[in-house]
């Protein structure tokens, strides 16, 4: 018996919401970054679930793409966070509010 799709989607929604809340509420850049990864993986889960549901490989291919892009993004993002930390001795995003009037 196949697990119904709604289970997967529910889990995906829960993970995405957790990720979103993490982005909005946490101030440490590293934690925000991890939350974003959580959101991405929630979406990946939904994609793979849909792919299985419809017997179509498009969703799985798209999930792979999103993982590759996420890996590339981690490289850049971590580099920015490290240099931010070196510069300011803190990874608090609220303190790094320079780009404003």
């Amino acid at each position, binding site marked *: 018996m196949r697990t119904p799709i709604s289970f997967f989607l529910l889990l995906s929604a829960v993970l995405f919401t957790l990720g*979103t809340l993490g*982005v909005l509420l946490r*101030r440490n850049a590293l934690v*925000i970054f991890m939350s974003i990864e959580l959101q991405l993986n929630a979406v990946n889960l939904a994609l793979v679930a849909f792919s299985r549901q419809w017997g179509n490989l498009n969703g799985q291919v798209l999930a792979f793409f999103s993982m590759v892009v996420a890996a590339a993004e981690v490289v850049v993002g971590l580099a920015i966070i490290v240099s931010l930390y070196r510069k300011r001795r803190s990874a608090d*995003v*609220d303190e790094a*509010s320079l*780009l*404003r009037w």
Partner: protein
Amino acid sequence: MVIGADLPAINSAMPIWIVPLFPLTGALVLLLTGRRWRGLLSGWFASFLVGASFVSTIVLLLDFLGGDGEAALVNRLYQWVAAGSFSVDVAFRVDPLALVMALTVSGVATLIHIYSIDYMRGDPRFARFFAYLNLFVFFMLVLVLANNFLLLFVGWEGVGLCSYLLIGFWFERKPAADAAKKAFIVTRIGDSAFLIGIVFIWLRFQSLDFEVVFARAPELAAGTATVLALLLFAGAVGKSAQLPLHTWLPDAMEGPTPVSALIHAATMVTAGVYLVVRAHPIFEASEVALTIVATVGIVTAIYAGLSAIGQDDIKRMLAYSTISQLGFMFFGAGMGAYSAAIFLLVAHAFFKAMLFLGAGSVMHGLRGETDMMRMGGLRRAMPLTFWTWVIGWLAMAGIPPLSGFFAKDQVVASASENGRLWFWIAALVGSLLTAVYMSRATFMTFFGRPRSEQKPHDAPPRMGLALVVLAAAAAFGGILGLSAVNGILPAFLEPVFGAAEEPHGPLTVLALALASSAVAVVGIGIAYLVYGSGRIDWVALRSRFAGAKRASQRGFYVDDVYTGGLVAPAKLGSAFLAYVFDRRVLDGAVNGLGRIIGAFAGRGRAVQTGRVRSYALAVLLGVVGVLSYLVVRF
């Protein structure tokens, strides 16, 4: 290379363009390498090139005389402008008139170059001075050798530019810089009329070449001819400093004295006379235009003569006298006595260049003093300058047998020969004034007791050389035109102007000559009585007639009228536009717009908090908003 084969192109054995090429080379070399020249070498270099130009003009003359009697030799170099049907060549022309002008220009210029080597010695911009002088000679030669109106105009504007550069040569002094601007702007008024005239000539004849235009000029209707002639004449009035555009010339004396001699006495200012004489077929098609030329000429001659009497500055006196003599030349041209006008032009180039160089020698000896009130008795201290000046003075006053006598007599006599007695009498009055102001200056400068403590010295050798050669030319130049009918110059110019008519006025040639010389003697006598004899206390007369003196000295307030009537209102209008209209209205509109946008932006920028999390929230809300819209919609 000959393009434009539809017109007959007679090529002389020697290319004409060589003549202006020499000074152009000098100007370019000196302008590009001016700082590297040391000592007086650049002056010799420039003088040599102008001398080469003079020699090649003589070769051209011999070439022309040895030719088979064509009226003109023309060199077409290349087609310069080709726009639709409008086509102008760069073409040079040699005919008797051009030769006389080119010889005068290059000859006098050579002497003045040599003179300047001494006069400008030690000037920090020595080489640049000679670069400008060479450039001037180049443009002047282009002017007199041009074969069409447009190329003539190039030379015309070019000499104006050099005049500007040289008047303002000592631009550190504000009067010099102002005078340069004034000369440039005032002559520009005439030049714009001249340019309009050139456009009209094109519209009427579909050509600017001299041979085409002048061959067809007699077909002109009287009205058209009057308009054309007066437009050209307006250009001549500006360039030759005739009433009412004469005010720039006295101020132009701020330039170095050799410049005054070369540009503002001998050559450039006579370009207007050359233009009128060159374009005489157009003027002859209109009786009205000729009469206007003669009237402007004689009125200017008398006006400037009266002004010259009141001058204390030796160079301003000579400037007014130049205006007056140019008036005589226009008078002669207006009377149809073209060869007499050209004869006076040549003689004037000799004696006025000589007088200016003499004045320069006096200034050189007195450390730049130009006020005749602080001269006097210089004849013992500077004998060479004195004796050459005497020749120039008597030549200009019109004492036979010096060149000025023959030249001016022929111009004055032309009125009587035309049967216009009133013009003749006016011309005699003008000659009387000439004799008076020249003699006054001579007595004030060289006779009497010295009125300053300076120890003057005579001219250095190179200045002396130029003075002596020009004085000889002023003395013997009369040989060129002993008779107005068959003298050397009139006979040479005959192919251009047609044969001179036998005089048919009420008075014989001898009586006319006697009348002019009598007038000259009377003029000198009056001046001697007042300024030379010591019997009249002329210093006291100056204060008794102070009003008349001041009026004469200020040129009868023409300049003041221009300043008050034209310049001041224009400045007022500009000030209104600059400080009221521009600042309040234009700037106000622009600044107001900026302020409105700024106010909106001030509200809007509060959104940019710089906090990443608030941006993330905004993104989230945006996505939720768009998604709910899509959900509701479908």
